[in-house]
């Protein structure tokens, strides 16, 4: 079957029920998307399907169809950062960094749908993404900062 990831079409020959996460990581070698729990408890595997944040460990590859898959690599690059990534750098969010691809993808999707989230909305929407290092205070700051940047743009 064919899937479109970060604007590029890929042919993959896998079982229908293989999770998108493992197709990305092991079949296509796109490793910015992380495996943390496999049961939608940690959010490290968050990617966008047609712009909406989803847990790629819960998406069967056969259900992706023509939807555009965007991973952290497709959101922005070190040379051309997305506003959320720029805010993550400015606020020095990452410690180990392993959850941050998922945090950033979740935050970018949230701000796309809701450019002015309240503190409570940020708390609710970001609480599906676990951070074992405890970067939550900086995640909040970076999201507020990115929201302001995106509104001005």
């Amino acid at each position: 079957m064919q899937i479109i990831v970060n604007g590029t079409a890929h042919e993959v020959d896998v079982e229908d029920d293989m999770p998108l996460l493992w197709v990305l990581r092991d079949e296509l070698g796109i490793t910015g998307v992380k495996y943390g729990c496999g049961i939608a408890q940690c959010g490290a595997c968050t990617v966008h399907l047609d712009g909406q944040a989803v847990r790629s460990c819960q998406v069967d590859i056969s259900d992706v169809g023509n939807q555009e898959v965007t991973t952290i690599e497709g959101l922005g690059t070190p040379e051309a950062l997305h506003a959320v990534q720029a805010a993550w750098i400015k606020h020095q969010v990452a410690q180990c960094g392993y959850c941050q691809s998922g945090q950033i993808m979740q935050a970018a999707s949230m701000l796309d749908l809701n450019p002015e989230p309240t503190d409570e909305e940020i708390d609710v929407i970001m609480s599906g993404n676990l951070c074992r290092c405890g970067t939550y205070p900086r995640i909040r700051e970076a999201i507020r900062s990115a929201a302001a940047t995106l509104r001005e743009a």
Partner: protein
Amino acid sequence: MGRLRTIGRRSFLIGSAAVMGGVAFGTYTVQRPHENPLLGDLKPGEAALTPFVKITGDGIILIAPHVELGQGVHSMQTLLIAEEMDLDWGQFSVEPGEPAPAYYNTALSEDILPFMPTNNSFQVETARNAAGSLVKVLGVQATGGSSATPDSYEKLRVAGAVARETLKKAASRRSGVHVHQLKTAHGAVQLPDGTEIRYTELAADAAAIKPVHLVHLRDPADWRLIGKPLERLDIVAKSTGTQDYGIDLRLDGMVHAAVKVNPRQGGGLNSYDASAAEKMRGVSKVLPVTGGIAVIADNTWRAFQAADAVDCDWGPAPYPAEMDGHWQAVAESFTPDRLDSEWRHDGDVDAALEQADVIEAEYRAPYVAHAPLEPLSALVLVTDTHADIWVSHQLPRFAEEKVAAIAGIEIENVRLHNQFGGGSFGHRLEFDNVILGTEIAVQMKHTPVKLTYSREEDFAHDYPRQIGMSRSRGAVKDGHVDTWDLAIATVSAATSQAGRLGQPVPGPDGQIVAGAWNMSYDVPNLRVTAYRVPELAPTSSWRSVGASTAGFFAEAFLDELIHAAGADPMEERLRLVNHPATRKVLEAVAEMSNWGSDLGENRGRGLAMVDSFGVPVAEVVEVTNTDAGLRIDKVFVAADVGRIIDPVNFDNQVKGAVIWGLGHAMNCEITFADGMAEQSNYHAHEAMRLYQCPEIEVRGLENAHKIRGIGEPPVPPAAPALANAIFAATGLRLREMPFNKFIDFV
């Protein structure tokens, strides 16, 4: 890197050497002959240094010998070198230290001897140094114990200064200008006439001369980097998905492996049926490994699925199958034959208690998992003569020894490539992934094998924090705390860990009472006693180790005594505190939290202070008791590490440690049923999520005598400060973690 390693082990005897057409600088001159000879270290045999600074014609490479697990150690270590070398931030690349004895950790031994961390007398410093020499001889290149900063602070600045002065000497010889007229800046030597010679242009010259041994370190007033807010070196990679972790690595021809090992930790495998698994798509074979099986497949997910499909008949657990048996073993350990240490006895506790109304309480702390977000992995390639392993590990030398023993290969031909870790919290001190990955690779020589743990397998074999209890008896007099007999019984995580290393642990395990026996309080009658519980389920160091349990036992019961005395928790601690820098930490949180002000209805604040790893940390937690449950509103933290190297990372580490301490106290425990951990994933061992995260205000103080690390010390006060806040808001005294067994959190 192969060449660098060879130099490190065999030929790097003089402090600098040619490396790939360049020059490498070590820390030979750390000898500092003008100082106390007991403190000066290097004997001839120990001077086989591995370099910290490598300059080639192309660039400058700084070596960060500790493993980067999120604590920011690569930035911290290289900034110390760069400060002295007059390098601009980012004007160099970073390479991890290869496993080598030269990268011994001199600070790890600081707290293994029974001296108060606040005691810096000559005798104590001398004894600490003896212990440090032992660690050095063992060649422990360890990351842990909040030791990276004290280990690096002087050593790496000296390495940078040696490099700078040697480069100046090389420039002097080339230019004919006297070395005193030369300056350095931005990675170049500057001549009086304004011309510059880049360090990279001087590499070959510097390699040909003897390094300068006598160097002066920069005056702190001149520091450009130390103490200034910097952008951590890995921040862009970690914000763009371009940072590779151990789990992300690929090699040509690599196969994927998953393991299924007896979840009754240490139990055997009676038999297994892999017939269904072997027929599954992508599965090439199912192999036996210690205590279980491994599946080899062409994809991680297929390996996981097939491992699930193997039917295993497990042997029994070598410890009690149910929690009742664990708690009973702990409760029965408060006996003279289990006495481990009695390092603190001020006044006469027995006499004082005989004449008083005794206040008693028992506290409990459960097993808790480390569960870093990146599951364990190991990529291993074994040939007939060599073995390579790519893994994130806190004890790389020991890991290499494990590989060598299993593969039957000389350790000189084993190479560990230390990787960025997606968190650790002590988890990457263990060897299961190293051992099992090598066992598989030995059965598949010449094929690179990447073993990835499923989250469930990782939880089942986490080696949790020590389980323990305390029994306190105390008394008050004239409105003050007067007497306190604190007895703590836990299993010894150090003994459990050392057993897996094949190392003995002589003497008492100071971690059982860490953070308690050394409390900086002058209670007139105070005794702190440790009892060692016989080994139960295997345990391991968990962020802040013993102080995470002993600190809770001590500071929560102290709150009970203060309450019984009718005193104020802050005022009474300030009255009892006996160490100037520690007093300032208390005073700081009092001021920050506006202690004593009215919080209003259904609200409360709790205070705790614990000194662990030589760092006094005081925390005030504010909570509100709402209709929906308890909400943690705000935390104020003050900590004294002597000198803050990087204020941004300091702030991040403190906040992370507070969240770690609070989150696990709220809702985490590992319990065993039928010998197996009942918690298999984050839904059952959640810790803190973002919506529960309080605002955290941090203040770093620099009054302490010695420089210390901050990764762990803010953990221990968090749980007791929360318990004390809950009491203040609700009247409910919580004496057992996790607290959600007794109270709902919003």
